[in-house]
């Protein structure tokens, strides 16, 4: 579709900027230093819910704002610029999954996400690296009950979840289930990562899921595929925000810091690296937008484009934050300077739902080599 924002999209972007003024990078530091157990501000999340953000990507027929994933990407990009953590990513993805594949019970859960900010965390990964398919999480039948067992890692928003969307293998194939996080048989640990955010390590121990909502098993493959695609396209948008802001701050610093009696931005060695980075950021943006649009258009290229966007945004966000730290010099290495926060969030965001090698491989496979 279009690379240029429509008036409505501009409006969405402006309102996102406004809201996120309350959540600058300084807030990330504050939450971290005060050992906030959530790693993000619940107040901020409440405000996002009030603004209707969880329903951004949903069609108007399903009670959403009708902005599609492209609009959701705008919110992600803006949150990337301020490094604002919130359950937005999980919620945006889950809302689309339920809209597309959910039964009436799930739609009720979705209502509570949209209206009350309930959180559904996506529990796919097991172990150290992303793999969309379950490895050792299983559903077995015993005494007429369906029991869920296994451990999921790197569960975004797992530590604050009300529900989990879990993938598990059974004798009949892969299932996708929505389980209540407060049930007995669910154990939630959390780990704090480099980006000062928390991620769930969630284990299921003979959790009886007979009463829980199960997606049609025929949809499992598509659900997992859709999650991987949406998550990575949205993360690519967040990474665009991260790289743009890190770059912006770096350029400002280049125009301000003096050495050898000159503004350091006048040194050609730095100018060329900055100009090269400018180009890399521009092409990353176009690819990310294209991927989000492709999802909204149901373009057959969408899955490949989502992987491509994730690869490119990850690499360039890493480059931009590395260059940022380097060009700030000694100050860049200090915890006092905020550029380091961008470096760290870029790494974790790149890793979520598959790092760049995972997606290079996925793209190459899809392209027949």
């Amino acid at each position, binding site marked *: 579709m279009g690379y240029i924002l429509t008036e409505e999209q501009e409006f969405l972007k402006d309102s996102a900027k406004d809201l996120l003024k309350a959540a600058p990078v300084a807030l990330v530091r504050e939450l971290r230093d005060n050992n906030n157990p959530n790693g993000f501000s619940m107040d901020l999340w409440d405000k996002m819910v009030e603004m209707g953000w969880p329903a951004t990507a949903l069609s108007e027929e399903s009670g959403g704002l009708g902005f599609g994933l492209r609009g959701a990407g705008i919110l992600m990009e803006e949150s990337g610029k301020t490094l604002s953590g919130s359950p937005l990513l999980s919620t945006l993805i889950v809302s689309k999954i339920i809209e597309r594949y959910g039964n009436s019970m799930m739609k009720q859960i979705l209502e509570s996400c949209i209206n009350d900010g309930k959180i559904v965390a996506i529990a796919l990964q097991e172990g150290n690296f992303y793999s969309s398919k379950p490895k050792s999480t299983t559903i077995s039948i015993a005494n007429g009950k369906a029991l869920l067992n296994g451990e999921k890692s790197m569960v975004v928003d797992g530590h604050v979840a009300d529900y989990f969307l879990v993938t598990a293998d059974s004798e009949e194939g892969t299932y996708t289930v929505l389980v209540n996080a407060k049930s007995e048989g669910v154990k939630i640990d959390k780990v704090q990562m480099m980006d000062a955010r928390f991620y769930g390590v969630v284990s299921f121990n003979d959790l009886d899921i007979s009463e829980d909502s199960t997606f049609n098993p025929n949809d499992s493959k598509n659900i997992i595929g859709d999650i991987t695609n949406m998550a990575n396209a949205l993360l690519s948008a967040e990474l665009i925000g991260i790289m743009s802001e890190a770059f912006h701050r770096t350029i400002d610093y*280049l125009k301000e810091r003096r050495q050898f009696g000159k503004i350091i931005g006048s040194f050609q060695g730095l100018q060329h690296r900055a*100009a090269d980075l*400018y180009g890399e950021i521009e092409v990353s943006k176009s690819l990310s937008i294209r991927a989000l649009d492709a999802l909204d258009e149901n373009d057959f290229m969408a899955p490949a484009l989502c992987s491509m966007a994730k690869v490119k945004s990850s690499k360039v966000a890493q480059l931009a934050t590395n260059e940022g730290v380097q060009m700030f010099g000694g100050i860049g290495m200090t915890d006092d300077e905020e550029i380091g926060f961008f470096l760290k969030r870029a790494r974790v965001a790149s890793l979520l739902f598959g790092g760049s090698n995972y997606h*290079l491989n996925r793209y*190459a496979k899809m392209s027949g080599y």
Partner: protein
Amino acid sequence: MSLEVFRKEVQEFLKLNCPDSMRKPIMEENDTYWGGRNAKFKNADQEKWFHAMAEKGWTTPKWPKKYGGGGLSNDEARILKKEMEKLGCRPPLLSFGIWMLGPALLKFGTEEQREQYLPDIIKGKVRWCQGYSEPGAGSDLAGLQTSAIADGDHYIVNGQKVWTSYADAADMIFALTRTDNSSKKQIGITFLLIDMLSEGVSTRPIKLISGKSPFCETFFDNVKVPKANVVGDENAGWTVAKYLLTHERASISGAVDADMMTPLSHYAKKSIGLDEQGTLNDKVLRGDIAEWEIDGAAFKFTLDRINQEMKAGQAIGAKSSFMKYYGSELNKKKYELRLQCEGLKAHAWSGEEYNEGKIARQFCRTKGNSIEGGTSEIQLNIVAKHILGLPS
């Protein structure tokens, strides 16, 4: 006319007028038609295709109808481009007149100049070359010294140009000359149109690392040029020159775009093969190719984006420098990978079974991409200064 009706019309037209052989990838120099007084068509198909397109003005889809151009809107032109891409149609005419001089005349030329030169560019009757660089003025173009001294209603031009692509095949040259040496070097440059058949103009081919000689030294020895051939004002040629460069740079990046149709993986699969999992046997190369293809697509989308931004009224300006830089570096990388994809046979220099060293020669030629039209370093300087606002 609605765009869908237009699309139908284009499809019909192409089906009827673009012969099968003109829908094959360009393999050698004479697969393309450059026009000009001495031009010869390679075969009847090429001739038919060219005339059909020239008749419609579709050699220059967006140029005004009154000069013989296509008069298409941006949307229509994009449809034409997409439909041609779908069929793999070769461009009917390659021309510095189209890519460089035409846009400058449309902006800075007098009405007489437009009427005199544009129709011949559109119909491929006159072939132009570019006389910018000199032995002492490459990156520092404004330091040029080829002199034009006023003499009644004429100038007398003396000096030397270098790296003039296709000067020995061209009918006309658009040249930068110095008409005033007394102030800042950017002031005192005049943009002149010179007939290559004028007395005192001579050329000498230069052999490149590709083994070919597409460019020349061009000498001017007391060449008489009418004052009517000045584009823009006397001493104000630098503005015209720079504007033309933005078009040159944008068209160089567009050429990279067009060259991306066959994916690298196609060549790699053919010569290296796949394993049982269906992945390329050379895993390192597989990753490199995937990364290149992703960059290539990202660049292509960016060209689309810039197009849309221009349509929305933003000037391209220094963005053409980014496009030129990114596109030419991408093309160089592509040929590095192409050599790896095809091993020995890509490195051969001659012999019929090696297509007379076509790939190796093309590889060598791509090294010029980041030199011609202003080097990569110069493009980065421009981006740093004019887009990022970094101080000198």
